[in-house]
């Protein structure tokens, strides 16, 4: 006979809805982030308080950086005997959409996943999320900017939570030299969703016995971030730490500040040798000055005052078309193109004192520690001949012997110790070859291309300003070094010739924008070819 269980003595009815239910907690994290540690801490606290606790996870291969869900159920202590039922509460191994009391996400996109899967719902869930981003592989590999919109994720979190606690818990943990599980546990405690005292959580951390002091400090930081808001009753209680400022917002603010200064004292935004040119920007429309001043500094540093003047002249020519938006776009892209990355400029960037300082800060090197910096360089024959005066460069470019010698030296790349006497001397010497640049092969080539680009913009601006702006933006596909740059140049050439043939069509600008996106969609130009074929 099967084991016969007694019949229900009380009408079980809707006991779930009368509150006879476990507290449900879902933790969404990436493998290796400590989501399991967080779940275990919560269980330890709950068991310490006499709750029945159950946690499950689906580790599997997800433990290797993949998205993972840990699920915890905590059932309050059961008084005495359970008439006619199982002695222990029957707990579930799955979070049920719409029935999760507390969702903890270690990262903002994982929070989005919790919302998407229906774990976080506005009628029930306290949603604690860290606002930091760990970019997914498709966001990272995009040739341009493939990042998803952070504010869309935050909005979703707000819509899906009864109460939202959003804060950069990774940064809090980092400040205390701890891990995110500790600051998130603090937030869990601080949110007050679980019926346990702060000290119980802290005891669990102490009992775990690893990195206790930093963990407790991070816990405390997380606790304060999530402590219940003042009892102003709004439909959704939201505790959002300093809302993450998007990079664009930050840049916009800085630009606004600079625009103010540029209106009265443009010379203060450039070095002393460029002061005269800076004053000249007062002739330009207010909206473009800040960008042009950036360009002056950049071109001046890249070459000299004459080169900066040439930059300004080019911008003034575009400004005469009378389209401020176009002028800003050109001023920006022109500065970047005129300062194309050649070996001389890279050497300069590597040699700057502030760069050496930044590297040390980034490596968190203290005064007592020594640091060495090794560059991974692999100058190609073309890159070397490109920087040499035209005739010499062309001759060497043809020379098989030279190619073989350079090839031998740089085939496997070279690792240069910038912090050594020899290494620094080499780089600094390279950086000081600046005066040779205007006579180089590449310089001539780029100036010619820039000239043609500007001519085309001026020409098109007369009848289709939208298209002209898009042509200006085409410079963005010119990126990288060596083969990547060459590929960019091929894309650029294709885009510009498309722009010519698109002239006169009603939606030319939009079409060109789509083509530019296609150029940045893959590495081998398939998308662009396809898009061009579809015209």
């Amino acid at each position: 006979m099967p084991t016969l269980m007694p019949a229900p003595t009380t009408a079980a009815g809707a006991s779930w809805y009368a509150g006879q239910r476990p507290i449900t907690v879902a933790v969404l994290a990436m493998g290796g982030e400590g989501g399991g540690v967080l779940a275990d801490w919560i269980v330890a606290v709950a068991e310490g308080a006499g709750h029945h606790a159950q946690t499950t996870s689906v580790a599997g291969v997800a433990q290797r950086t993949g998205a993972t869900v840990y699920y915890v159920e905590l059932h309050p202590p059961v008084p005495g005997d359970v008439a006619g039922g199982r002695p222990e509460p029957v707990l579930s191994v799955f979070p049920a959409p719409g029935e999760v009391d507390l969702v903890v996400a270690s990262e903002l996109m994982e929070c989005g996943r919790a919302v998407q899967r229906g774990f976080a719902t506005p009628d029930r869930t306290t949603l604690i999320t860290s606002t930091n981003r760990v970019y997914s592989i498709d966001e990272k590999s995009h040739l341009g900017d493939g990042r998803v919109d952070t504010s869309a994720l935050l909005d979703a979190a707000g819509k899906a939570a009864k109460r939202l606690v959003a804060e950069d818990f990774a940064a809090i943990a980092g400040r205390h030299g701890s891990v995110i599980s500790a600051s998130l546990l603090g937030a869990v405690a601080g949110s007050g969703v679980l019926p346990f005292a702060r000290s119980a959580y802290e005891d669990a951390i102490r009992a775990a016995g690893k990195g206790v002091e930093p963990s407790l400090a991070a816990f405390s930081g997380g606790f304060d971030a999530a402590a219940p808001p003042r009892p102003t009753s709004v439909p959704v209680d939201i505790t959002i730490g300093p809302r993450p400022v998007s990079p664009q917002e930050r840049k916009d603010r800085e630009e606004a500040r600079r625009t103010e200064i540029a209106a009265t004292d443009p010379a203060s935004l450039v070095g002393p040798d460029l002061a005269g040119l800076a004053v000249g920007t007062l002739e330009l429309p207010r909206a473009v000055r800040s960008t042009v001043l950036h360009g002056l500094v950049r071109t001046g540093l890249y070459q000299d005052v004459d080169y900066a003047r040439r930059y300004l002249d080019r911008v003034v020519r575009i400004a005469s078309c009378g389209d401020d938006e176009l002028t800003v776009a050109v001023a920006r892209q022109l500065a970047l193109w005129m300062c194309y990355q050649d070996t001389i400029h890279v050497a300069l960037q590597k040699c700057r004192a502030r760069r050496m300082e930044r590297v040390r800060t980034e490596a968190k090197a203290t005064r007592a520690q020594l640091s060495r910096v090794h560059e991974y360089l692999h100058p190609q024959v073309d890159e070397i001949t490109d920087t040499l005066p035209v005739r010499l460069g062309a001759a060497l470019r043809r020379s098989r012997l030279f190619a073989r010698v350079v090839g031998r030296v740089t085939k496997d790349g070279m690792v240069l110790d910038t912090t050594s006497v020899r290494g620094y001397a080499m780089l600094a010497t390279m950086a000081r070859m600046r005066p040779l640049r205007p006579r180089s092969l590449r310089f001539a080539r780029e100036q010619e291309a820039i000239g043609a680009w500007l001519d085309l913009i001026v020409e098109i601006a007369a009848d289709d300003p939208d298209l002209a702006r898009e042509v200006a933006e085409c410079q963005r596909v010119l990126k990288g070094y060596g083969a990547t740059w060459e590929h960019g140049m091929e894309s650029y050439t294709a885009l510009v010739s498309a722009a010519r043939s698109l002239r006169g069509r009603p939606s030319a600008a939009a079409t060109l924008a789509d083509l530019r996106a296609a150029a940045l969609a893959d590495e081998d130009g398939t998308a662009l070819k396809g898009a061009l074929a579809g015209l």
Partner: protein
Amino acid sequence: MAERSFAAEVAKLRLGAGETLHVEGILAVTKALLQSGVAYVGGYQGAPISHLMDVLGDASEILDELDIRFENSASEATAAAMLAASVHQPLRGAITFKSPVGTNVASDALANLASGGVTGGALVILGEDYGEGSSIMQERSHAFAMKSQMWLLDPRPNITAIVDAVEAGFELSEASNTPVFLELRLRSCHLHGGFVAKDNVRPPMTVREAADAPRRAVDRIVLPPASFAHEKEKLADRWPAAVRFIRERGLNEVFPGSPEATDVGILVQGGLYNTMNRALELLGCSDSHGRSRIPVYVMNVTYPVVDAEVLDFCADKKAVIMVEEGQPDYIEQNLHAILRRAGSITTLHGKDLLAPGGEYTTQVVTRGLADFLTTYVPDLVAARPALLRDADDPTSPFAPRVAADVVRPRPPGLCTGCPERPIFSGLKLAERETGQHHVSADIGCHLFAINAPFDLGATTMGYGLGAAGAAALSAPGSEQRAISIMGDGGFWHNGLTSGVGNAVFNRSDQVMVVVDNDYAAATGGQDVLSSHADTERRSTQHPIEKAARGLGVTNATTIDHTYDVQRVKDTFLRAFRRKKGSGPELLVMQSECQLNRQRRVRKERSDKLKRGERVVRERFGVDPETCTGDHACVRISGCPSLTITDNPDPLRSDPIATVLDSCVGCGVCGNNAHAAVLCPSFYRTDVVDNPTRGERLRGAFRSRWIALAGRALERHAARMEPVTEKEAA
């Protein structure tokens, strides 16, 4: 050494009768084995039962005290064959592996074992890797139980129930002379809960005692005529004996339900009981202690199905529903046969109302039961939870609150500093020169190469079958030599014979890559034959290349530093360009699994720092001004520590590459930049703790030299850059 140490938890295995253990499912199973007087244990690691093997490995002291033999079996087939010890001898033996993949491998031995039957209890603990988080094909182990007539226990996800099932499993096995499967679903293995312990039991007979007193009975050996007799025995003796034991011990459970619900009933696999009860709670038909108003028959034994119990339960019921996860619907089909044969008119529902396949989550079961109950006993459905609402209802949990395209997939990938990454970077770069090759992949971390950014690998045919999977496509004569990938785990599991031996014998032309990272890394860092670790209990340090050469491979290269991308790339190119028909070529790519290495190195480092010794820490970086944000480096690496960040340049908007603090300085970024001729943005910073006196002096001199040599450049910059910018910097 395994990735996770259970040294602390293992102490709990010593707890005696009456003490309560709060542990993970896996540890509970181990304790249950000790309480059952098991004489020997074997198995092969793999999620979700890897930890069972790790716990046993860490518990060697306790096992020794009890004279229990424990082996890390070479494969699941080895583990299953180990149960041969229980055929003639009254020894209790348990083995464990991931299922159904492990059961596939083990099925030859299991079929032979099941044919002759057992004297001592033989328990096969299956980690059923099905549903979310699973890494394998979605199939059921149930089929193996049916085909070999081994009994299948499916305890509910509750630690006490699981512990009881282990003990009952041995008894059932002995009562019916049949090996028994104990199925632990993925989530049950990682379930945390509590149970009351019993004392550990020393096996009444140890393996040593058994070996010293050999026994044999020719009628237990699978060869005619005994094999024909075995089949009859299974049906005439063992099956009825099993049914008798199951009924006498009340292994299955019946909840009679409320009087008004006697018309209907639910039959459920034990493993799904908790989910079913939660569904009933949500529908207002049960409570948190399982006091269901609907009659429920809980099948803690899912094979064999006990006909009499099913008929008793279904008697006088208008309709019942079978809650059975996965497909095919073996149990449902079985119930149909039972009911029809008995002339029952009870309607049987199952996969017509529940999902035909896939994991039975709370959501799936609630929807199916809601349909069933609403049809037959609508008055009993006291509540309708939110998850029943359609997505177009704004109060539904599935109402779209986030745009689908902002939540991107996040598949598992290679860890920071993984030594396998540069192998695939090198292969990808080599293919840029030679064009694409057919790549036959295998099971292991290296399989992650099928995803972005590598996109390498066309098929995976099973553990250690990478080389075998390339057999047909590596016939001599093709321009593009086929490549196969295998891990060291797969190589020793069976790849040495099924892949390497096969390729030699059949004069295959493939390039066989064996990724040798010192451990069976994907399953949690267990040691294998070629591990470099010195271990007391296992014999290691047997080189892969030597084994392959022993089988007749002549072209073999071992690269002992995979991080040298250029060398990896050149090695591939050399292999690709070798003249056609030169036979199989073996490339052993050897570097230690970084996850395991870091655990080792971090400790060594902190010890050295404590002693005030010189320590060098390496990490990579990207110069933000030099990086133009094309992310070519990411597309050839995919390292979690190599990511993107806001572009600090006011004139640029596309994000630039950056290296996070989690960088372990493996060197792949720099080597990739070289091998792929990327950009000059990468640099390596060596931070030296406790530098020597000479180093410090040289450092001071260098700083002064750098200041001097850079003066002209800084002067030029000072003429061009505004003061504020410099100050800010």
